């Protein structure tokens, strides 16, 4: 065999030149190669993922669905809250005045209502005004001419001072107080259902949060399992690099990157799903809101929400990979 000696020669030269410090690698070189290893690990991880497109896609889709589902529900509930808070501020108490009340008594009732501390504003609609309004809006105007007298009572619209639904008790007391006033026929308040809705949304939010956490654990397990398989597939490689002096961090790195990237891609895909369905549903909601002459607009996830979703995916991926690595890597030692 032809064995020339340049390598041996260089070994000699180095030995005399650097002596015992020959084994040492300069710190700056180490830092540089540390970063280089991060870079190469990053790109080889991407390459490995691209080489198994079906496996990678399946994992990413599972993660994406698990992230998108609770996010979408949370967003929906957020919108319901937005919508109902709009109702809350417009919560009114309708006070119907007894038919046989004369104008003096009506004026007195108006003053009594205005004097109540919980009332911020009142609007009076006389029986004639009510009739005019009915004639204009209902479309049954022509039917009214067959009536002998105005069937409609005079009405006070009372705007309570507090913020509606959250202070239902206060509202109830106010209703009771108004009911006891003379010349009051009936009091109607549309606050109960608003409060029920608000409570239901609160409860649903908690349920969605619990579901989100459960799905988050699911994502953790999916990624953990993927990483565990990857570790087993690369058992030989792990043993070899450990034998030639790789640190635990070096061995861990490709698996942590795999988890991080799977989670990140899952988060990105979840964002795409979320935005897609948002625009899809948003258009119908706009039409619906238009029919109700409402200014309501579907609130989207926003840039911050999208970023948070992607970061959350990446974080869960990293944590899942870390757990799998901690459980499985120690067991692989050269024997």
């Amino acid at each position, binding site marked *: 065999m032809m064995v020339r000696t340049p390598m041996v020669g260089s070994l000699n030269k180095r030995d005399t030149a650097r002596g015992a410090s020959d084994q040492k690698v300069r710190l700056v070189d180490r830092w540089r190669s540390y970063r280089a290893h991060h870079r190469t690990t990053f790109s080889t991880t991407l390459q490995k993922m691209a080489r198994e497109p079906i496996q990678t896609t399946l994992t990413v889709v599972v993660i994406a669905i698990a992230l998108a589902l609770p996010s979408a529900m949370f967003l929906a509930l957020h919108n319901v809250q937005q919508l109902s808070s709009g109702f809350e501020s417009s919560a009114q108490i309708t006070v119907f005045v007894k038919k046989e009340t004369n104008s003096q008594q009506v004026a007195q009732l108006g003053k009594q209502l205005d004097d109540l501390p919980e009332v911020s504003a009142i609007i009076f609609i006389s029986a004639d005004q009510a009739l005019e309004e009915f004639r204009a809006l209902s479309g049954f105007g022509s039917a009214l001419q067959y009536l002998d007298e105005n069937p409609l009572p005079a009405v006070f619209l009372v705007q309570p001072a507090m913020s509606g639904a959250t202070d239902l008790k206060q509202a109830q007391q106010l209703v009771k107080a108004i009911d006891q006033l003379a010349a009051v026929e009936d009091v109607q308040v549309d606050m109960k259902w608003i409060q029920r809705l608000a409570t239901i949304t609160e409860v649903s939010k908690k349920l969605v949060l619990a579901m989100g956490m459960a799905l988050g654990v699911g994502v953790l397990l999916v990624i953990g399992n993927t990483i565990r398989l990857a570790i087993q597939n690369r058992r030989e490689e792990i043993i070899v690099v450990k034998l*030639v002096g790789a640190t635990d961090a070096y061995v861990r790195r490709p698996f942590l990157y795999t988890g991080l990237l799977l989670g990140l891609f899952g988060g990105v895909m979840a964002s795409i799903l979320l935005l897609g369905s948002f625009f899809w549903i948003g258009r119908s909601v706009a039409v619906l809101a238009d029919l109700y002459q409402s200014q309501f607009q579907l609130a989207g996830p926003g840039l911050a929400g999208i970023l948070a979703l992607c970061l959350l995916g990446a974080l869960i991926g990293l944590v899942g990979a870390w757990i799998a690595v901690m459980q499985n890597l120690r067991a692989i030692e050269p024997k």
Partner: protein
Amino acid sequence: MIRFDNISKRYPSGLEALKRVNFELEAGEMAFLTGPSGAGKSTLLKLLMLMERPSSGTLLINGKNLNRLSRSLIPSYRRQIGVVFQNHQLLSDRSVFENVALPLQISGYPSSETGRRVRAALDGVGLLGKESHNPLTLSGGEQQRVGIARAVVHKPKILLADEPTGNLDPTLSAEIMALFRRFQSVGVTILIATHDINLINSLDHRIMHLEDGILTDDGAHSNGR
């Protein structure tokens, strides 16, 4: 350089692989470790690679007690030794060059120096032309030489080899041994475990003999350096 002081190794199974082994290898010395299969040759090498820890006794490398080396320091210790494995332990998902570069990459050498050193090591084992090949496409002897190049690329002070000529014909074995002698000539301490008696007898080197875990001959008198 390497000193075994009353080293015993008992496995959890109860097997006593090494019994009170004593020997010392000077820096730059080359020795063969012989004995039948199961005599404890592999165990002795595993202790030196820190794949196993001795049950009792002291293992000194360059005057440092290896028993006291914590788990986290094992990687940096392993970077200072070179190991040639019987089954090569090459990675089939990368080229010959990348296999040889692995120890340098792990130790954090700059890439320019890595390239230079890898090519020098491959040149040394006569495989410079095959750096872009996959190890699986090489013959057994070539794979073993790639393994040797990887073991010496970071210029270790100690080179360990476990049956490096195990599956090779006599001509190839002789070539591999010639390689080892060259490393010895530049001051590397070398310990080779082998049962290839014919080969050893043709060379004039220290021969240690293990029999059933006992070092029956430490070969110090036949030191042929």
